[in-house]
């Protein structure tokens, strides 16, 4: 099997750990979101949302735990969209010429970048989970050790699928554009609806119609579903709403993300193969 994509992966990870600024901000930002927005909002929401008596056996989840999934998704969103910038940078400043002039198949550029993006996302997700735990986010309540382990694996699986789709999307846009200022602009434009028109911070049901519809086709929503199922359980109460996740819901979310990934991969591959690097 040809392993040139590992070389691309190696270079990207090397720079991730080397560029202190990048490493620092990518880890600090989610921590701040969780700590400042999370704690402030959750203490307010838990006050405002009336203490409706639970159905028996339904776990009540505070807002911090509810939105923690949102914080994880936001971190991955930015990490993956920004990997597009480094790809575009390589293209604009000629570094991609070296890769294209070599026997390396162009698909390996995509695979290598995606692998490193997924790795970065996994590292960041684990750090956020740990940090959240310190802050008092109550994940895996009522789970056995076996269930917790399985849930962590489930979370990581969803992280991988979600990250891949975003990486492929970012790569497609990056290879189509000529300047990285344009790319920055598009990323900023995309990230707002992607993050806020979803169930990351609040339940979908109460959203206005148009935003609700965007949320239903938003891969982020399905990622959040999977995350919440694995971290909070299949039956819980939070933010004034009951949540029931069946196996069907989880599998549907999985399928949606998988489909999103495949479509994005094909698009990215086509774009990278046709891109002009000289």
């Amino acid at each position, binding site marked *: 099997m040809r*392993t*040139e994509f590992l070389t691309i992966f190696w270079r990207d990870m090397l720079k991730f750990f080397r560029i202190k600024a990048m490493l620092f901000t990518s880890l600090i930002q989610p921590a701040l979101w969780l700590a400042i927005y999370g704690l402030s909002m959750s203490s307010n929401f838990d006050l405002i949302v009336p203490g409706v008596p639970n159905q028996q056996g339904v776990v009540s989840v505070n807002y911090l735990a509810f939105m923690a999934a949102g914080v994880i998704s936001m971190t991955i969103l930015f990490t993956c969209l920004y990997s597009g910038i480094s790809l575009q940078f390589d293209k604009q400043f000629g570094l991609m010429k070296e890769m294209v*002039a070599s026997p390396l198949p162009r698909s390996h550029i995509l695979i290598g970048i995606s692998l490193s993006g997924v790795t970065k996302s996994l590292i960041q997700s684990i750090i956020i989970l740990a940090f959240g735990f310190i802050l008092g986010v109550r994940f895996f309540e009522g789970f056995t050790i076996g269930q917790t382990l399985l849930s962590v694996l489930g979370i990581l699986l969803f992280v991988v699928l979600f990250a891949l789709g975003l990486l492929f999307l970012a790569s497609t846009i990056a290879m189509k554009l000529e300047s990285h200022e344009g790319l920055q602009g598009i990323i900023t434009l995309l990230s707002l609806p992607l993050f806020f028109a979803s169930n990351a911070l609040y339940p979908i049901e109460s959203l206005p119609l148009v935003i609700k519809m965007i949320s239903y086709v938003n891969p982020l929503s399905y990622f959040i579903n999977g995350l919440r199922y694995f971290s909070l359980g299949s039956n819980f109460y939070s933010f004034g709403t009951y949540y029931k996740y069946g196996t069907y819901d989880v599998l549907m979310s999985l399928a949606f993300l998988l489909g999103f990934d495949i479509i994005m991969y094909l698009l990215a591959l086509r774009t990278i193969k046709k891109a002009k690097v000289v």
Partner: protein
Amino acid sequence: MKTEESIISVEGLCHNYGKVTAVDNISFNVKKGQIFSFLGPNGAGKTTTINVLTTLLPIQKGKVTISGFDVEKQQDNVRKSIGIVFQNETLDWNLTVWETLEFHGRLYSIPKDTRRSRIDELIKLVELAEKRNELVKHLSGGMKRRLEIARGLLTRPKVLFLDEPTIGLDPYTRMRIWDYIKKVNKEGVTIFLTTHYMDEADQLSDTIYIMDKGQIIANGTSESLKNSLGRDMIYLETDDDEKATRIIKGIMEVNYVRGSSKGLVVSLKEEGTRFMPKLVERIRNERIEIKSVNLKKPTLDDVFIHFTGRGLKEENQEKKKTA
């Protein structure tokens, strides 16, 4: 020339960008082991040509063979046989010298032990041993260029392509880079370089092809190209260039005379030092005043002007960086 000796063979190559023709039906052969230059101003089509030869641009029309492989049909084989030093810097500033070479070696699937020993060898060759673990962003322009040369040699290529290798470098560094190129060539690597610097083509090349507006307008060795213009050139400014031209044309020691922005240029069959006083007298005898006169040996720039009416130097402006 026997085709077996040709390591690069180009036939009828054309390339255009939309309506603009960058390369207009050129053909040439490069002999194994030589230093071959494409000399021409910016926009002549040199970079496009090198990009097609190194598989970075597709072949629109024509046939190119490098080291026995067809550039269109056997791309990967071509890529493994060549090394490239691009015109614009293509280094990652956040990698070290060693990592830059390691990355390149891995891209070409060079096995680890071979790779590591070659990297050490090449770092020594280009005298960057003490900068081995230095980040590229801390290297000077000359050092970066040397690193790129080392990188181009990592796969032990049969042909090393250099696109404007000394552009933007100061005179001292340029000479050092020329030395490296000659050193590498002595070890058996065929060199294909493009340049707009007359002295570079002159100093290094076994064969020069002069290119302008997508076409090859002259070729030969540096000597043969200059000799085609005669032995010496006299530059003359008079107050009646028309009349002077007529007189000069009739003199038998003269190859040709033509006008330029600065007066007349006379190409001589003979040595100019003895002839010049005779020429001056002849012209003054016709009551034409001579404002200035100068004598020099023809240069490649003169060859270029001869064919195109413009100078190489007029086209080019570059900033200089220190080594």
